[in-house]
């Protein structure tokens, strides 16, 4: 029994990372209607950058979060201006997916160039301590991951529901044309959305790297997991992204206990594809335009 709970805890930690990626995908989608498949790539980039910063400066691992998160908020704003905005002005939304595929490929290539093909990891934020509750051992880094998710969701909720910037974001999300006519600078709102997504990617990357090994080739699994969690949860829905991410992590964790890791991936994907076919708007989505 405690073994099963152990698996659930691990699955939820993985799911927390997926949820953070899906939140970024979902936020950007709701504002710009762009599915940013590269979001998972930025997570790995942030993680490896954190490892290098930690080694160069010799700072504690936790400090890298404070450095990398603002850096990625800025980086993603630059990416929006240099890559996304020019492409979105010319390409249809469907073709934008290919632009982000290209971006994902470029990030993977950059990682290969700078960090080579070796896997990297980092010291946990609060050392190798673990908490044992009823025979279940919880690695302290898992708590940091879940904590990062909780803080992100709370901050996002506060921003969107309780501030005037959030109000303009909601207006832009529901109808960009009408929002622009109301005097809202839609371009600026998009820049902010991408910037926030960049911060989320950095948060996911820096909190997960102490708990796992990452390398250039892990960009695709993270991109896929984030994309699937966002769509399965219902694109544009914050709660959906969180639920989608956690469910995906949990499914993978549970199935890998009873089958091999590869087959667990298969069953998790199959469940999500069936879910998509049976409930095409995702778990918590409201989109009505899923099927022809």
């Amino acid at each position: 029994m405690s073994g099963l709970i152990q698996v659930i805890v691990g699955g939820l930690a993985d799911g927390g990372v997926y949820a953070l990626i899906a939140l970024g995908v979902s936020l950007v989608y709701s504002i710009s209607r762009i599915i940013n498949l590269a979001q998972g790539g930025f997570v790995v980039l942030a993680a490896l950058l954190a490892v290098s910063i930690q080694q160069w400066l010799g700072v504690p691992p936790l400090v890298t979060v404070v450095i990398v998160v603002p850096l990625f908020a800025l980086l993603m704003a630059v990416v929006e201006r240099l890559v996304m905005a020019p492409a979105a002005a010319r390409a249809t939304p469907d073709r934008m997916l290919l632009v982000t595929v290209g971006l994902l490929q470029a990030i993977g290539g950059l990682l290969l160039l700078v960090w080579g093909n070796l896997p990297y990891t980092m010291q946990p934020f609060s050392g190798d301590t673990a908490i044992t509750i009823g025979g279940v051992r919880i690695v302290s880094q898992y708590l940091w991951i879940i904590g990062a998710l909780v803080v992100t969701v709370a901050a996002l909720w506060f921003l969107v529901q309780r501030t005037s910037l959030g109000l303009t974001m909601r207006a832009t999300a529901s109808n960009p044309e009408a929002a622009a006519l109301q005097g809202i600078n839609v371009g600026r709102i998009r820049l902010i959305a991408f910037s926030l997504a960049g911060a989320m990617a950095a948060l996911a990357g820096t909190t997960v790297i102490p708990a796992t090994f990452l390398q250039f080739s892990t960009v695709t699994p993270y991109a896929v997991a984030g994309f699937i969690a966002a769509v399965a949860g219902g694109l544009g829905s914050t709660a959906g992204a969180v639920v989608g991410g956690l469910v995906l992590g949990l499914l993978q964790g549970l199935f890998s206990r009873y089958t091999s890791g590869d087959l667990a991936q298969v069953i998790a994907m199959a469940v999500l594809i069936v879910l998509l076919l049976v409930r095409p708007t995702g778990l918590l989505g409201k989109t009505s335009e899923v099927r022809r």
Partner: protein
Amino acid sequence: MTTQEQTTPTTAARPQAGRGRSPQRLVVAAVAVVVALVLPLLVPGWLGLLVIAGIFFLIVLGLNLLMGYAGQVSLGQTLFMAIGGYGAGLLTLRWHWPTLVAMIVMAVVSAAVAAGLGTVFLRLRGYYLALATLGLAVITESLASGLTGFTGGPSGLVGVPSLRLGTFDVFSDQANYYLLLVVCGLGAWFVGNLQRSQTGRALSAIAADPAAATMLGINAARYKTSAFVVSAVYASLGGSLYAFYLRFISPEVVGVTVALSIVIMLALGGARTIVGPLLGALVIQGLPEVGQSFASWSPFVAGVVLIVVITYLPRGIWGAIKKAVQR
């Protein structure tokens, strides 16, 4: 993918059909055939690359039908590559089937799988279809490395025999090159004809406006599923030929990265043409061959090139060349 031309399908197809019979075009085609025939003598060191590019050209041609003409994104073509590659490999290696029979049987199996999946999947639109097919790509890679007893796991299936045509073993690079020349030629001929036919116009209509196409009496679901089936057969044949040529197939060959790069080849070269997929396959497969030190740069460069092409050349490299020539 939505069409780049938002004109009605009939006006889009007509000038194409007219140009197809012009003597100018015949001369260009004849020159291309001659160049293709003597190429092995000119660049013998590049034959391996050309064979691999040829295999991917075949796969991208099939995707072109589905994505270019019918406007449906599939990120999961590797599923059919895997069925063709692993299927033909296992049938010939373990059960000693004749290679050609194994290849054809697996193409039929792929068609059946595509017909089944197509009727269910192609009801999803846009991003959601892309997601579902991406799920297929993930499943394919995981199954290839997970079903160890069957597929040889991560180390792959080793010792697949070469393709045998009658008493002739298609073993050398040169033999494989000429085989692919014939197969790709037939594949391109079929897609080219289809593009100019009633079916091609129906597919374009579905891509441009599915609702309007349905009102014209076009059975969108049937056409989309047919395009999916044909693209699956192309990918399956490509997968089989890959396994027979390298005498090996591994999860890496049918990985998610490959699934994405097939779509990249089509978008890069230019959809809705025959030359576009060829250019895309040559560029993406050729990039790592430019130089030893460049090999590690090639994934990065491919990504950047794709971004630039999609942003500034909506019809791909070939579309841009054609536009420049016509001007």
